[in-house]
């Protein structure tokens, strides 16, 4: 073999090893990173998902379930974050409730990272940042940026086409790893299917009355800044959207019916397969638009993008977009207010003994005013047994 070829071989092998080591360290750091969460005064117990279905016990998706129990009979509400970890307003809002909420009547259950596996992977080809940081009065708080679907390291291979259980509706192959396409789950299925099955077991055994799944959506998508509601939740959702639009949000929040023909989504399947009324909340996230410009942490947190704005000028968006963008405090603020308003509306439609009373969580205006970080607690400032990891 020529000397030159040998040299090229040696050099390329060396560079490849360097690339693998440098990138591998970053992947490893991302996958093993632990996010501390301070259990606020309202948290009375923390269980894990594996308590409800052995099929997820000890797996990466054996996530924490935070119980905020008033001890006084009332409604049970499950606030669900982290279905799609590329939509950070969802897990941040859930964390906001865990660290700040106090429950005076009924029970509040909170999931911060519904699909923890997906949060340990960033999507190939999309150039997501691996981490994002929220400034707080006591320093920066770091979070993993995740993918929409579970990590292939935890669920491999995909079928050539995904058939939803139990309806057999055909969906794209990677949707078998999409937590919002695998409801109501399959006890012996792949990890993501087992995860939704475990959550359904939780919802049924804890007798959840209201299920709220938090999301974000690209501005090009028609279902934007809205509540998607199962039949059982229509009244609550309609009233909530009207009140918030009239009294709180500068950009209206709409409402959509959960379509019967689209299977595997939580707003459809949780309502169909349990006594809970199920809803999904959506807020605008320009980071998710395919037409976005530079993909970085700033876009993720500030939600400002010239390309998306330009698309808006051409009338191609379903949400307004200007130079202010859609900052994370606005997105979390909308979610927080929508959850709180939903609970208030629910209470007006229920008898006093079936209500839930939650306080201590900031609403939209306060979050926008003070910033999201103002409401996160310093894990080093509390005793270790109050700190949990996501």
């Amino acid at each position, binding site marked *: 073999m020529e000397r030159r070829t040998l040299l090229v071989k040696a050099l390329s092998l060396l560079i490849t090893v360097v690339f693998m080591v440098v990138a591998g360290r970053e992947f490893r750091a991302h996958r093993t990173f632990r996010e501390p969460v301070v259990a606020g005064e309202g948290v009375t117990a923390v269980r894990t998902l594996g308590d409800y279905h052995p099929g997820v016990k000890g797996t990466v998706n054996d996530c924490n379930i935070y119980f905020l129990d008033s001890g006084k009979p009332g409604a049970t509400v499950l606030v669900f974050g982290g279905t799609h970890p590329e939509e950070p307003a969802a897990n941040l809002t859930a964390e906001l409730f865990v660290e700040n909420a106090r429950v005076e009547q009924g029970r509040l259950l909170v999931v911060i990272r519904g699909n923890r596996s997906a949060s340990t992977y960033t999507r190939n080809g999309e150039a997501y940042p691996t981490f994002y940081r929220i400034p707080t009065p006591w320093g920066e708080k770091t979070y993993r940026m995740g993918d929409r679907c579970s990590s292939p390291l935890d669920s491999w291979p995909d079928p050539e086409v995904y058939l939803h259980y139990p309806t057999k509706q055909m969906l794209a192959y990677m949707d078998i790893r999409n937590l919002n396409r695998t409801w109501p789950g399959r006890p012996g299925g792949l990890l993501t299917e087992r995860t939704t099955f475990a959550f359904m077991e939780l919802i049924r055994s804890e007798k959840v009355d209201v299920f709220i799944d938090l999301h974000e959506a690209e501005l090009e998508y028609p279902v934007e800044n809205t509540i998607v509601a199962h039949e059982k939740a229509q009244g609550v959702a*309609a009233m909530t959207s009207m009140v918030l*639009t*009239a009294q709180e949000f500068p950009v*209206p929040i*709409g409402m959509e019916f959960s379509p019967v023909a689209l299977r595997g989504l939580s707003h459809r399947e949780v309502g169909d397969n349990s006594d809970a009324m199920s809803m999904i909340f959506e807020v605008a996230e320009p980071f998710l638009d395919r037409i976005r410009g530079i993909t970085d942490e700033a876009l993720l947190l500030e939600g400002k993008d010239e390309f998306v704005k330009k698309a808006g000028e051409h009338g191609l968006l379903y949400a307004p977009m200007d130079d202010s963008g859609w900052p994370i405090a606005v997105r979390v603020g909308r979610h927080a207010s929508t959850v709180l308003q939903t609970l208030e509306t629910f209470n007006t439609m229920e008898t006093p003994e079936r209500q839930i009373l939650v306080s201590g969580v900031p609403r939209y205006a306060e979050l926008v005013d003070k910033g999201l970080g103002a409401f996160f607690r310093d894990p080093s400032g509390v005793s270790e047994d109050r700190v949990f990891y996501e």
Partner: protein
Amino acid sequence: MKEAFFVRRKNGRIFAGLALAAVFLFAAVAVQAAPIEPPIAVTTCGQSPGAVMVKMSCAQAKLMPTDSDNKLTADGLRGKGYKTLIITTGTSMKGMGAAGTDVNKEIARIEELVKAAREEGMLVVGAHVEGMARRTDASDEASIKAVMPLSDMILIIEDSDKDGFFTAYSKELNKPLVVVKDALGIGAALAELK
């Protein structure tokens, strides 16, 4: 960040300030709006939740009975004693394609429904109560342009007329236009028209 853009109003408890906050009603410009009489039937041309919103708002304003049925057909309307039919416009697109809405089928249903309402001597109100979010695409436009010409009056919220479309369109059709500040105020506004 412009704070004013984000913070419009301090939030309040839902129903406490409802009666006051609800309505800014200015009935139409050139043509007098007809009185609204219950019982009211509400449906939608496009399967959007506008009809549910109208019903909820009417219930708040004690404008009863008000029934909403998104699949209401001509047969379901005949002989039920309804005095007013409200049809909300704008289409639902959650899950496009197979799970979406077929606006042409919706328009065909509404045309039959209005025919039946005329036979029953009912007042027909074309409504657009979900703001600019339901005025984005071709399906939204199709449902608006199918319903409004068949109506006796047009009911909208301020946000639906941001570009002045309904002001101009109601003049073009020579129909009374009722503009309510927001969806929450619809019931109270209609009660005023009783």
